[in-house]
C-alpha cells in the first residue's frame, strides 16, 4: 500500500475531514514546541474517537508506515516530530473532559484535553490536577502522559506518573488495552508505570484517568531576591535541610529575569542576581508555621528583598515571570536551546559555576531557569541562527551542560523527555546493556517499530523473534545500521 492508498483508506474509515494531505496544511504540523527540528508528515489525521485511532493504527500496520502521536504540539524534545513517510496522529479533537468524579477524586479525560482545563473543571468541586508544566494552559494530558511531564509543583506532589491511575491505549498491535483505572494497585506488572513517560513509543493513550487533589486550604507564595545564585542556592538548601518540602521552589538568574521582565513585566526586584519563588500549600495552620521558617532561611542567606504575595493576583504575577520564561527568552535572543538536565540539588552551586565558565569561555550566553527544589535545570542557551557558527557553538555548550549533569550523577532530562533531541545523549547516561534492556520492553509492545520510531534511543534496534532469535539477518542488520539482540 502506498501513501496515497493509505490516505484513501483513512478517509473512508475516519472521514475525509479528519485526514489532511494538503501540503501547506501538513507543513503546519512539521514541528512541535522544539521548532528547530522539522519534518513534514506525509499524512495528518485528526481522530475523534478511540475507534478512529484503532483504524489509523491498523491501517499503518497494514501499510507498514510509522506513526507519531501528537497532542498540542508543545513538547520540548521533539517527541512529536513527524516522519516524512509517516502518519501524524493529532489528538487535539479528542479533548473532552468526560468525567470529574469528585467522590473518587478522579477525572476521566480524552488525551487531547488541556491540562489546565482539567483543573478548571475540577475547581468548583474543590479539586485540582496537580502536575503543572509551564505550558499547562495548552499542553494536553495525552502529551503529559507520554512525556511524564512535571512542573513547578512536582517537588511536593510528584509527576504525571504519580497522578495517572488509568489509561486506555491503542497498542501498536491496534488492540485497545486498559491499564489501571479508578482503583489503586491493579494486579500484574505495572504496565501503566512503564507506559507513562514512554514518549509515544508504546502506543497511543486514548483515555486517561487522573487523580485529583483537594484544592489546598492555604497557599502562600514568597519572592526572594538575592545578589547571586549561590546565595539563593544556599537558601534552598537551608529550607530543605530544615525538613520543609514546599510545593515549589523556583529559581531564575539575572538573564532569565531580564527576559521575563521584557516579556511580561513581572516587576521582580531590581538588581537581583537570582530570584527564588517559594510556594507553600496545605492546611492553613501548617503553612503558616512553615512559611515563617522559609522567610527566615531566605533572610539568613542574604535575600535583599522578600515579597509575599498579598493576593491571587500578586501570586499570579510572581508566577507569570517564571512560567513565561522560556518563550520570553525570545525577547532577548532570536534563537535558543532549552536544556532540561537534572543534578543532585546540593550540586547546584558547583554546576552553576561551571555553566558560567562554559558560557564565559565559549561566548555563548546562558540564561538559567530551574526547579531548584529538585535540581532540574533549564539552562536556556542563546544564539542567533542567522550568524554562521552560532548554532553549532550553542549546541556544543548545550551538550557540555548535559555532560556536567551526568558527571554529577544526574540526568539528561527531568521532564521534557528524550524525544528526538536527546536520543544522542542517552548512551552517555546509560550503558548499551541498559538501553538494550529498555528496548526489550519496546519489542514487547511494538515489535514492528512503527509507534514513534527514532525517538528515545540513539540506535535503531530490531526486535528478534522469541525464543530462538537467530533467523536470517535483516537488511538493516547486514548493512550495520541496526542490530538484533
Amino acid at each position, binding site marked *: 500500500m502506498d501513501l496515497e492508498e493509505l490516505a484513501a483508506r483513512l478517509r473512508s474509515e475516519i472521514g475525509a475531514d479528519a485526514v489532511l494531505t494538503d501540503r501547506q496544511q501538513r507543513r503546519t504540523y512539521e514541528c512541535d514546541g522544539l521548532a528547530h527540528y522539522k519534518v513534514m508528515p506525509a499524512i495528518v489525521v485528526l481522530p475523534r474517537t478511540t475507534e478512529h485511532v484503532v483504524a489509523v493504527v491498523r491501517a499503518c500496520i497494514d501499510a507498514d508506515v510509522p506513526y507519531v502521536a501528537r497532542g498540542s504540539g508543545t513538547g520540548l524534545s521533539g517527541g512529536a516530530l513527524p516522519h516524512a513517510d509517516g502518519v501524524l496522529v493529532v489528538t487535539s479533537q479528542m479533548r473532552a473532559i468526560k468525567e470529574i468524579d469528585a467522590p473518587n477524586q478522579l477525572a476521566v479525560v480524552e488525551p487531547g484535553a488541556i491540562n489546565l482545563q482539567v483543573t478548571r473543571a475540577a475547581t468548583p468541586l474543590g479539586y485540582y490536577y496537580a502536575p503543572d508544566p509551564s505550558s499547562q494552559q495548552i499542553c494536553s494530558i495525552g502529551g503529559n502522559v507520554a512525556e511524564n511531564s512535571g512542573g513547578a509543583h512536582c517537588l511536593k506532589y510528584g509527576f504525571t506518573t504519580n497522578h495517572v491511575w488509568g489509561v486506555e491505549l491503542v497498542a501498536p498491535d491496534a488492540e485497545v488495552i486498559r491499564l489501571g483505572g479508578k482503583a489503586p494497585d491493579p494486579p500484574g*506488572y505495572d504496565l501503566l508505570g512503564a507506559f507513562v513517560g514512554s514518549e509515544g513509543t508504546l502506543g497511543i493513550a486514548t483515555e486517561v484517568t487522573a487523580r485529583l487533589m483537594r484544592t489546598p486550604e492555604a497557599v502562600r507564595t514568597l519572592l526572594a531576591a538575592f545578589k547571586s545564585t549561590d546565595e539563593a542556592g544556599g537558601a534552598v538548601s537551608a529550607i530543605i535541610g530544615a525538613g520543609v518540602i514546599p510545593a515549589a521552589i523556583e529559581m531564575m538568574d539575572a538573564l532569565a529575569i531580564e527576559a521575563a521582565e521584557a516579556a511580561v513585566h513581572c516587576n521582580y526586584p531590581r538588581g537581583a542576581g537570582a530570584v527564588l519563588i517559594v510556594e507553600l500549600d496545605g492546611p492553613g495552620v501548617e503553612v503558616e508555621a512553615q512559611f515563617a521558617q522559609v522567610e527566615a532561611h531566605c533572610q539568613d542567606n542574604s535575600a535583599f528583598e522578600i515579597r509575599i504575595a498579598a493576593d491571587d493576583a500578586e501570586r499570579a504575577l510572581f508566577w507569570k515571570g517564571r512560567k513565561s520564561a522560556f518563550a520570553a527568552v525570545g525577547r532577548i535572543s532570536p534563537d535558543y536551546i532549552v536544556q532540561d538536565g537534572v543534578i543532585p540539588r546540593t550540586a547546584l552551586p558547583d554546576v552553576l559555576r561551571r555553566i558560567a565558565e562554559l558560557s564565559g569561555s565559549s561566548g555563548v550566553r546562558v540564561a538559567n531557569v530551574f526547579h531548584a527544589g529538585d535540581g532540574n535545570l533549564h539552562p536556556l542557551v542563546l544564539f542567533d541562527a542567522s550568524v554562521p557558527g552560532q548554532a553549532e557553538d550553542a549546541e556544543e555548550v548545550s551538550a557540555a551542560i548535559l555532560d556536567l549533569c551526568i558527571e554529577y550523577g544526574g540526568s539528561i532530562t*527531568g521532564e521534557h523527555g528524550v524525544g528526538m533531541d536527546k536520543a544522542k545523549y542517552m548512551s552517555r547516561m546509560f*550503558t548499551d546493556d541498559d538501553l538494550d534492556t529498555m528496548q526489550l520492553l519496546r519489542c514487547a509492545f511494538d515489535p514492528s517499530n512503527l509507534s514513534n520510531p527514532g525517538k528515545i534511543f540513539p540506535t535503531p534496534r530490531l526486535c528478534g523473534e522469541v525464543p530462538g532469535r537467530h533467523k536470517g539477518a535483516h537488511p538493516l542488520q547486514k548493512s550495520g545500521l541496526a542490530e538484533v539482540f
Partner: protein
Amino acid sequence: MASDATLDGLRKVCDDRARPADDTDTVLGVPARYVVAPTSTEEAAEVLRLASQHGLRIVARGAGTKLDWGTPLANVDLILDTSLISGVVEHAAGDLVVVVRAGTTVETLQSTLAEAGQQLALDTPEPASTIGGTVASNTSGPRRLLYGTLRDLVIGITFVRADGVVAKAGGKVVKNVAGYDFAKLLTGSYGTLGLITQVAFRLHPLPAARRVVTTEVTGAEEAGRVVAAVFGSQVVPTALEVDQPADGPLTVAVVLEGTEQGVAGREATTAELLADAAVSDHVPPWFGAYPFASGQTGLKLTTEIAGLPRLLTAVRDAAGRHGLPIATRGSAVGVLYAALPATAAPQTVAAVVQDLRAAANSYSGSVVVLTAPAEVRDRVDMWGPVPGLDLMRRIKDQLDPEQRLAPGRFVGGI
C-alpha cells in the same frame, strides 16, 4: 541429584556462599536444589550467567518474609539469597535521596535515615524484610495515602537479567524521565523479570509531630461518612485507616503529621469531624499490620475510594453468608487486606473470594489472594482476572525468554 558441576560453578563464583539446599530452603513449599548468596551485583550477575548456562530456575530470597506469597512454582533449582548484597551505598541527605543495596533490611535503612531526620515514607508490616523483597512484592502501608506506594518512591533501579546482563534504569535524582521506567515495571514483579540488586529512593523528612485521631463507628456506612468528611476537609492526613475486626466495632484512624503547631490545629479540626474521637501520640496496635498471620489466607482487595464502605459491607456479608470470621483493615485510598482463618475449607475460601471479586469489580477494584495454605492455593484462582495479561506475557518473554525467573509465581502463570 545435584549436578556437582553446577555446584562447583556456583562455588567458583561465591565460594562457600554456594551450597546445596536443605529442608528449609523451599519456596511456597517447593524445595530448591542450591542456595547461593552473592555479595554484589557483579557476583549476582555471574551467578545468573551460570544459571543461564545450566538452565537453572531461580527464585530470589531476601529475608524470606514472603516466600509463601504468590502461586506455587513447578520447580526451583536455585535460591538466590540477596541478604549479603546489603548496605547503604549513598545517603545524600541534602538531596533527600538514598541508594541502597537490595539485601538491606527496611529497618536498617530506616534507622540509618532517621539519624539524618529522614525516612523512606513507607510502612513496613514486616520490618525485617529486605528492600529487594519489599520492592518486588510492592508492599505498602497506611501512609501510602499521602506518600503513594513504592512506585512513587523508587527513582532508580539496578537489576540483573535472566541472562546475567546487568541493567539499570532511572538514576539517583528525583526528577528524571530519561528512558523507560523499569523501576516501576520491576516494582511488584515478584522476581519474574530480573534480580533487583540496588534501588534508589526519594526520601522525606521525618515529621516533627504526629497525632492519631481514632473513633469507633457503628458500621461501614458510618465509616464511609467519616472517611468522606476527612477527605472533604483540609486536614490532609498522612494516613486514613479503617479496621474491621471479624467481630467487634469498626475503627477509623486518622494520622496527622507535620509541625507541632500545625498538627495541633489539624487535630482539633479532625476531632470535630469525628464523633467521640480519641487523640493519641501513638498509632493503635493494629495499625499498618496485615490482619492475616502466617498460615492463614490473606487477601488484598481494592476499590475506588467511594466504594470503600460498600466493600467493607460486602466482606461482612460474605463472612456471614459463608460462616467465616474475616478481619479486614486497610487504607481509605481503596486498599483493604483481609484475613481468613487457616482452618477455613478451601471451597469456602474460594466461594468467599468469588463473592468479593464480584463486589470489588463493581467498584473498579480487584481481589488478589496474597497468601494461602497449600490446599487453598490449589483450589482458588489466586490472582483473578488481569487486564493486559497478553502484554505482560510478551514482556516476560522478552526479558526472560526461557522462563527461569520464579516461573509460575506471578499472574497468569508468568
